[in-house]
């Protein structure tokens, strides 16, 4: 056998040491495993505070963090907003989760009234209610309009309420759960190939269609075109997805009409 895989995607994992509060590592673990199953190379670079951004990226990941962690990275992240927006405009797939999603919007206003400036990859703003207000916590079932993704399952836990502007669309429509703000049925944000979402942690392991969509986008970004990925079943991921969907239907918040 000769060498490694024919195609390799370059993944940039932003601040994994800081932004990892809700098991966001699960997304990287699932991405690597799926690439291995598909015979695609996955070269992930962890970017810590103070590290330079790599010159190129085919997929950008950022996870969630508490206010304290968000404050730590916000300044440096905002200073790189230009490049990140350029990447997003160039159809680089991105997955920004929870606190990372909030900082990929225009700003996040904390409960204390501090305004953390975001990268504005998404035309979205997030405002945290006063301390003591109910958090948006629970199982989520949503339907995504992103090609090939379909039903998405996950768990959300956030205080901030996010509102989308005209320049962003929702990543998904909430069937059970709160989503961005508990009012307008939107979940996350979508701008070209960039996805923001409140579904944390084990999102990619049990949403294989989304994982494949991100990998396909990354391949297209690096190699120009890319046909559909080979259909390889993952029975464990499918079962975990089905269980989570059932759980969300049974006990996820019903959306007010």
């Amino acid at each position, binding site marked *: 056998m000769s060498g490694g895989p024919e195609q390799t995607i370059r993944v940039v994992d932003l601040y994994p040491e800081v932004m990892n509060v*809700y*098991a966001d590592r*699960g997304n990287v*673990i699932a991405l690597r495993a799926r690439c291995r199953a598909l015979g695609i190379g996955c070269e992930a670079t962890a970017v810590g505070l103070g590290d330079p951004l790599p010159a190129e990226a085919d997929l950008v990941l950022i996870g969630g963090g508490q206010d304290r962690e968000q404050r730590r990275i916000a300044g440096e992240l905002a200073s790189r907003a230009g490049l990140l927006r350029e990447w997003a405009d160039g159809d680089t797939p991105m997955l920004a989760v929870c606190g990372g999603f909030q900082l990929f919007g225009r700003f996040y206003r904390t409960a204390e009234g501090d305004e953390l400036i975001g990268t504005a990859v998404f035309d979205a703003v997030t405002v945290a209610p006063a301390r003591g207000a109910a958090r948006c916590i629970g199982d989520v079932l949503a339907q995504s309009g992103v090609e090939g993704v379909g039903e998405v399952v996950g768990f959300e*836990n956030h205080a901030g309420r996010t509102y989308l502007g005209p320049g962003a669309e929702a990543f998904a429509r909430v069937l059970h759960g709160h989503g961005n703000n508990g009012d307008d049925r939107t979940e996350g944000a979508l701008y070209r190939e960039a996805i923001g979402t409140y579904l944390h*942690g084990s999102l990619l*392991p049990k949403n294989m269609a989304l994982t494949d969509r991100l990998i396909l986008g990354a391949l297209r970004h690096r190699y120009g075109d890319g046909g559909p990925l080979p259909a390889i079943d993952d029975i464990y991921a499918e079962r975990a997805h*089905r*269980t989570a969907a059932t759980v969300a239907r049974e006990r996820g918040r019903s959306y007010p009409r």
Partner: protein
Amino acid sequence: MQREPTLRERGALLAGRGAGEAVRRLGRGGGTALPGLIAGALAPGLVEALGAQLGQGSVTVTGTNGKTTTTRLLAEAVRRSGLEPVTNHSGSNLERGLVSAYVDEAGPDGVVPDPARSLGVLEVDEAALASLLPRLRPRVAVFLNLFRDQLDRYGEVDSVAEGWRDALLRLSGEVGDSGDGDTTLVLNADDPTIATLGEVARGPAQGPGQRPTMTFGIEDRSVALPGVEHAADARFCLCGEAFEYEAVYMGHVGVWRCDSCGRRRAEPDVAARDVELMADSVSLQLDLRAEGPGRTLQIDLPFAGLYSVYNALGAAAAAHALGLPAEAIADALEQAGPAFGRQERFTVDGRHVRLLLAKNPTSMNEVARAIAGATLGSDGPSVLLAILNDGIADGRDVSWIYDADLEQLVDRTGSVVASGTRADDMALRLVLAGVEPAVVEPDIAAALEQALAITAEGGWLEVMPTYTAMLEVRELLATRTGAAPFWRTAEPAAPDAPEPSS
């Protein structure tokens, strides 16, 4: 502070007792919370009434991991010192659990049997501590560690620590600086979030009137990990800089320092040295620092894992702060036996079963490390039954299993069975870690049967359940082996499994 229980409080205690007996008679569990819930609703001052009766005062034990075991070890040291522990040994650790413990102990007059010799040894939930601390005014408050745990229930780690700091400041404000009746803080020197609680409570004025502290920690770099674990939570100092570590013992717990503000881990008052980890026990040298010559004790701790050392240290430091004799401390650590579901052992049809509660990323890491490092039998590696439930007490959100390093089980375990309400999530996590389960069976009873069937006679089955899964599988095991139900596990259990063969 001494006061008699009021008529109303006595009535409430009787009503609670009746409720507990009814629950148990109906076979609906231990009634460890309901009596307290009912009694507490009828008479809101019961926590204070309990506190007022305890002639020897009380100790609170809080932290993310190790509360139940530490409480058990400390209660045993209290008992062996000739005092009467009043304790919520069933692990019911909200206000209603404390009141339930009172309901259990109190006679018809609402008074505990021997108030003068009674000492409260009370496990307290992390989130409940802030409200209970000022009402109990314990002699000693033990803080074990703070890790991410059930974020859907507790909120973020920072807000738990903030609640503790506020409560300690309020306690200082109420008690004043006289030092009279002051609470001694027993703090884990190796967990920076815990260690810095001392300075918060102490306030700006150093010197006389400082809140007394007793710190504990591990002094043996040979048992350190190669680096900070993924599941670490306190990566940053109060001043905002990242911590540097000279040694990491688990998660973010170790020999830490901040190069920016100069805060650093101080040498602990109670220390474990010469730590030797074995398949199902730990030997260590326990140093108790004191005015004058300290004491050094050789301890054979009958529990596996470095996390067990921290539980033993927390109990020993609290006992030391109470002034209990060193011999009573040593005997308690060696002979108290496991709390329910925490390294409890059973023998079923000639198979040895060890129950290792794993309820959050750090706890699962430590349990996986203990399993991976154990060669309990000579008949090949143990079978593993991993059970993930998503009840309220487990945390509805199961994504935390991705923060645990299950990768360390690769090639270090025999056949694996995944079970629980979220068996499919457990199986997927294991597969992604490189450990494909042989069986996925959500029903715990059926999974236990299959796991026992895979286990060779004379071999070992390791059971790694979340909290409600532990209660369920323990009941199944207790039924099959005649072990006591969990609410009657206050007394040291007779060992019911033979010593492992290696």
